[in-house]
């Protein structure tokens, strides 16, 4: 009896050091990969070259115009996509949703296509706005549809989402085909940071701002994750919190789509891994999800640059392969735990 009690009492204490250790590792990796990302590429941008050439050198120009923007974009896109997934999982109370498995990305893509057809010269900010509006519509449609599915049907929810995305995606493809815009569509569908440059990535700061908004409303999202009944009992304006969450998801999805294209599985896999380590308290999870997502995308982006050096392969291919494997593992793990 006394040993059992001792084991119970020491269980939480045992978990703590591992968490700190993993957290520190994520932090160190984030710094290392960020530095590495700045110096990996075809042209020689190395600390030595920067010191030799001074401010006017090619290396310095490349750093400011290309490498630094790319690295910043990768970090912010990664972090915000992870948060979009986390918030969506709290709103839907389902671990298998993210913008890519709920049709939100497809709706936003349809919005992008619409701007290309109806207003080809539209500024990138305007395109993002339209994409965000369609993303918001997509989130709303998805939330409406899944209201008919019991919360416990864990796997059915993302299946419905993927089907919804499939329908919208095929409509988009149809119009792109008819209007000879398939190539542009293919560009968005393949997430990549190879075209990111100064002046063409700044929208990711808007996505980053959404992460800050999410952090401020973190406790509200945690409570909403307990269900509408809990939220109302605690005096929360349920609809408003869901509304804020929908805007966060839509804006992040649109900003990422406009800057880098589709990056699959990220918003799904990372929050799940973090949930296993520290749980779902959103305030605690946000730095972890943001950090780990950034590390994940940074690592994949560096891989994309070096695998076929000096050529690049699309980032979404690498993220897709690793992400899909992780997703399968999570899915099978869940099953064996009878959740």
């Amino acid at each position, binding site marked *: 009896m006394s040993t059992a009690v001792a084991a119970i009492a020491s269980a939480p204490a045992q*978990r703590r050091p591992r968490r700190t250790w993993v957290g520190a590792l994520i932090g160190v990796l984030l710094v290392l990969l960020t530095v590495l990302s700045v110096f990996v590429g075809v042209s020689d941008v190395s600390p030595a070259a920067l010191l030799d050439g001074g401010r006017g050198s090619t290396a310095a120009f490349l750093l400011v115009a290309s490498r630094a923007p790319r690295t910043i974009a990768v970090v912010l896109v990664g972090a915000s996509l992870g948060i979009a997934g986390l918030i969506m999982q*709290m709103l839907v109370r389902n671990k298998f949703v993210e913008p890519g498995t709920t049709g939100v990305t497809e709706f936003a893509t349809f919005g992008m296509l619409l701007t290309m057809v109806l207003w080809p010269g539209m500024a990138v900010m305007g395109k993002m706005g339209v994409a965000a509006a369609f993303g918001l519509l997509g989130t709303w449609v998805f939330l409406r549809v899944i209201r008919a599915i019991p919360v416990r049907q864990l796997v059915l929810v993302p299946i419905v989402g993927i089907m919804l995305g499939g329908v919208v995606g095929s409509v988009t493809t149809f119009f792109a085909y008819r209007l000879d815009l398939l190539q542009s569509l293919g560009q968005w569908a393949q997430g990549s940071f190879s075209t990111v440059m100064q002046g063409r990535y700044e929208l990711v700061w808007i996505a980053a701002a959404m992460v800050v908004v999410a952090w401020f409303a973190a*406790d509200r999202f945690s*409570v909403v994750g*307990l269900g509408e009944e809990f939220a109302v*009992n605690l*005096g929360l304006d349920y609809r408003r919190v869901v509304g804020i969450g929908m805007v966060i998801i839509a804006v992040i999805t649109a900003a990422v789509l406009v800057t880098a294209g589709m990056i699959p599985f990220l918003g799904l896999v990372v929050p799940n891994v973090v949930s296993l380590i520290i749980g779902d308290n959103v305030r605690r999870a946000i730095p972890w999800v943001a950090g780990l997502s950034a590390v994940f995308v940074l690592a994949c982006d560096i891989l994309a640059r070096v695998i076929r050096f000096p050529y690049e392969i699309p980032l979404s291919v690498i993220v897709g392969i690793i992400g899909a494997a992780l997703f399968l593992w999570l899915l099978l793990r869940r099953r064996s735990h009878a959740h």
Partner: protein
Amino acid sequence: MIALENVTKRYGATTVVDDVSLTFGGEGIAALIGPNGAGKSTLFSLVGRLLKPDDGRVVVDGVDVATASSRELATALAVLRQDNHVAARLTVHDLVEFGRFPHSRGRLTVTDRDHIERAIDYLELDAYRGRFLDELSGGQRQRAFIAMVLAQDTRYVLLDEPLNNLDLRHMTEIMRLLRRMADELDKRIVVVLHDINFAATYADRIVAMRAGRVVADAAAGEVMDPDVLEAVYDTPVDVRDIDGRPVALYYS
């Protein structure tokens, strides 16, 4: 006081709660009993502002629930629903902390922390505070939810079938705890129960519902009557006196 005034709720053509007038809050524990589909849970949803009545109104401490600020209501009234299916991995401490939400809005003061600690102590959850809810047994999880409601520090506590899926020992444990909360902390508890013997043993008053209407509302001893219970449940119920207490037998 929680007062329902001629409250009616319909789903399409079916009337789930039919012109119910009731007052809660005068006694420590009031048990709400009745067969499945009698409207007990809907009644809780109406009081807990999850549903709007089609007719009539619900008044808590003189304020109409329909127009009251949800946050203020949350400091007077706590409703714990039967579906405690929580997918989120939260620790016991996290959950209890969220009970302070109506007071703190996420910024915990010294008073809030004090309430959290007292609630965890009261439910004897100190050893489990760092555990995730999905790592707890049914009884421990139910206690964690009650600790959250306790931290919410409301006068009225509504519990919808808190004994669901619990074994004998944990059912008794929860009922004793509710009794203590009513006696020591002066809580006014309304609880939906299926086991009428628990209702008779621990409640001060029993309200029986059937087909959306209140069919009996009296002291626990008076409702424990074969004719009354048979009318409520539509099945013969024998009531015996064992050691001075009425015990309902409905097993054969």
